[in-house]
């Protein structure tokens, strides 16, 4: 009996340890170290780490670029987020049938999501290119320095690219929700003659309450994770007008060798994600149908 227990426990340990060790060493411990490093100051791999308390944070708070970068993710969250949310919901509703058009859209809607984010970023740089881009080809002339070269337009252009690349994922999420709705509800819906917009407002929207919350939390997470799109499209330029926290973090780390500051920024980013996710979960907390029944 004891031998059997030993064998079982030995098996568990042997099978878990490679994953646990790798995860602990390269994901979990570095993650926790970020907070520790955010209170230190050092500028190289082997240079001495000095404890500086909240200095990195104080320094960052005075940094205008930090505020721009958080303002920019706020724009993504507050403007691009709702647009993605609504468009993907409507699109999911529109492709829930079995028509040929719906099938074609279902086959292609994840294309932007599945190709490399670098390809997406490069592609959009060319769409906005001042002399040879798609927009120029359509006869739409942008500002003199180009859409991405002008501070007042650049970040909105990034927003459009962000919406383009994100739409498919949320459409997939909502489509799955629509497809898993109970048959009886849909049949009752048909019998009552509710279709199109009416069906969307009275059935689809209320039935998707839990997925709406999932999607909203994902918008928050995805927005706060924005890095590659900005890094390749603009790298924060012009004049830091398109900067986002994670790209600024990599800038501090690579170009300025300010490892402490970069860690502080990462820590701040983490707490902002956490706070935003909690707020979003609170806003989308309740099943509206249940509330009425009670």
């Amino acid at each position, binding site marked *: 009996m004891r031998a059997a227990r030993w064998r079982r426990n030995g098996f568990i340990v042997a099978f878990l340890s490679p994953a646990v060790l790798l*995860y602990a060493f*390269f994901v979990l411990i*570095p993650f926790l170290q970020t907070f520790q490093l955010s209170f230190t100051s050092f500028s190289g791999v082997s240079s001495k780490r000095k404890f500086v308390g909240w200095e990195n944070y104080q320094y960052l708070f005075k940094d205008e670029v930090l505020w721009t970068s958080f303002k920019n993710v706020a724009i993504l969250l507050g403007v691009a987020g709702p647009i993605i949310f609504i468009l993907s919901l409507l699109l999911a509703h*529109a492709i829930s049938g079995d028509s040929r058009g719906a099938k074609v859209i279902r086959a292609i809607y994840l294309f932007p999501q*599945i190709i490399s984010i670098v*390809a997406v970023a490069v*592609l959009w740089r060319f769409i906005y290119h001042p002399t*040879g881009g798609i927009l120029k080809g359509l006869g739409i002339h942008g500002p003199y320095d180009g859409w991405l070269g002008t501070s007042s337009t650049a970040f909105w252009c990034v927003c459009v690219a962000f919406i383009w690349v994100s739409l498919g994922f949320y459409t997939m999420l909502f489509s799955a929700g629509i497809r898993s709705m109970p048959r009886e509800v849909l049949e009752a819906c048909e019998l009552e003659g509710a279709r199109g917009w009416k069906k969307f407002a009275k059935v689809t929207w209320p039935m998707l309450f839990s997925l709406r919350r*999932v999607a909203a939390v994902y918008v928050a997470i995805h927005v706060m994770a924005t890095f590659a799109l900005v890094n*390749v499209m603009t790298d924060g330029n012009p004049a830091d007008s398109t900067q986002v926290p994670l790209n600024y973090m990599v800038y501090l780390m690579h170009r300025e060798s300010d490892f402490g500051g970069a860690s502080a920024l990462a820590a701040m980013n983490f707490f902002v994600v956490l706070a935003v996710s909690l707020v979003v979960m609170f806003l989308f907390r309740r099943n509206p149908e249940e509330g009425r029944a009670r």
Partner: protein
Amino acid sequence: MRKGLTWFAYVAFFVITVFPLLWVLMSSFKDGASILRSPWEMPAGMAWENYGNAWTTGKLGASLVRSLITTVATLALLLPIGAMAAYVLARFTFKGKAFLTGTFLGGMMFPNILAAVPVFLLASKLKMYDTLWGLVIIYVAYSLSFTIFVLSGFFSAIPKELEEAAVIDGCGYASTFFRVVLPIAKPGLIVVGLFNGIGLWNEYNLAKVMMSAQNATLSVNLANLTNNQFYKADWGALFAGLVIVMLPVLVVYWLFKDRIQQAMLAGAIK
């Protein structure tokens, strides 16, 4: 009227999604000057030399090989390691299981680049910085959360009776896993492998931070090439590079789109 609206939405979405990709493909066969002059014109001939230029002068060939090696090596390590852990978490009860599961799950919530500073320091200390094997190890570690999560789902769905029968027949735990469970879970492994494979092929964040420009992987190299070529006229090679990055992924996606969507959904809805 309603039908018309729906069809308008279909066409608009189709054009917005697919058209830019076709534009890239078309432009990859034009010479740089004519892309710049008339972005809408069909290519005059097939300028295959763009692909040659991308391969050699853009050094995309070397970085493509690096991306291929990292992707394959990562999958070769990730799938067995992930499957073993997922199986134990799906089938056995032990102290600390909830904590472990939660910790692995938590990894899917924060961006991999958040811990860039400590990971960079650790990699430098272990002589992993700017090496392919170092990148592979880091990739495996950061892909574990998703892999374990989706595979546990597959393992939980396999009826327990099969394993019990195998144990009665005298199979040990490990050989039950390798001989009975894994073959049944093969569809799950394929799905997870495909999805991870696409993500690894496309990966930018960690490759950017962990590799120097000379040893860049395909995605990073393409981004660098864009920065170098953007204000020069020779865009032909750049567009060819874009096609080289996108095409394999789109082909794989097209062949397995239902399964890949299934994996994405399983990872997304927890």
